[in-house]
């Protein structure tokens, strides 16, 4: 079965995504081999659903996006594995957040990944997973210059062997 990539995308948006080729400056392939066994590996998750901790973190900046519709908050949040659904907020103007708030696992399956660690399928998980807000300025300059290096530094501190990214 081959997934229809545009099944849920409004037709008017399709030309924004289809047939555009590589991102400018990103025409070469990249590859880092996964060398360990999964059962000895520490795995991290990253969601772009704009999740944040309501009690201790600022939401992604939606007010600025309201006044500047081409801009999206390029910052990131660390989400501790023990965070519960009630502690997680969603700041993302491009999706309905009802299901995400009811069950954050649909975008950031931290509990499920923890279960797989207990079962020995993977070696373990990082202590804090990652969250960004997926709607970004087309150039992705802030993500490239600041966010990506910070995410990499976090993953290295956590000794992550692999990352599962899930766009919202």
């Amino acid at each position, binding site marked *: 079965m081959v997934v229809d*990539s545009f099944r849920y995308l409004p037709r008017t948006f399709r030309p924004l995504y289809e047939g555009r080729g590589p991102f400018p400056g*990103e025409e070469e392939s990249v590859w880092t081999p996964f060398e360990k066994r999964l059962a000895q590996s520490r795995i991290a998750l990253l969601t772009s659903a704009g999740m944040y901790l309501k009690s201790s973190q600022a939401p992604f900046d939606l007010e600025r996006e309201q006044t500047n519709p081409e801009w999206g908050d390029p910052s990131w949040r660390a989400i501790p594995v023990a965070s519960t659904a009630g502690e997680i907020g969603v700041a993302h103007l491009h999706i309905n957040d009802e299901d995400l708030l009811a069950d954050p696992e649909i975008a950031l399956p931290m509990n499920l990944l923890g279960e797989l660690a207990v079962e020995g399928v993977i070696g373990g998980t990082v202590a804090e997973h990652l969250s960004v807000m997926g709607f970004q300025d087309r150039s992705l300059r802030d993500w490239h210059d600041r966010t990506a290096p910070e995410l990499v530094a976090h993953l290295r501190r956590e000794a992550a062997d692999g990352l599962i990214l899930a766009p919202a």
Partner: protein
Amino acid sequence: MPVLARWIEAAGIPTVTVTMMPSVAEERLAPRIVGVEFPFGHAFGMPHDGPMQRRTLELALRVLAGASRTGTRVDLDLEWPVPVREAYRAWQPKEPSPIVRKMLESRKGS
């Protein structure tokens, strides 16, 4: 997001991107891709459906650890259990996003 995956991969951390637009991730040269035919916001499946989320996550782990070359794409053979029209409406925000509002306004004005 496929571009973010590339930057992290290039820094030495293997990645897999679980996405509802796998052909776009392929065009953007994401290193490993799992395609899901799920509505936006639901990369791992239906809320509170543990078995469905587990099948998605396990496939992501298999592709992360087992893909032998860059550009590997494996699609998940699972059907969304809600009729497509209903699911199409349900994933969208209650208010149009600022950029969509701007597009609609400029269309009206032209």
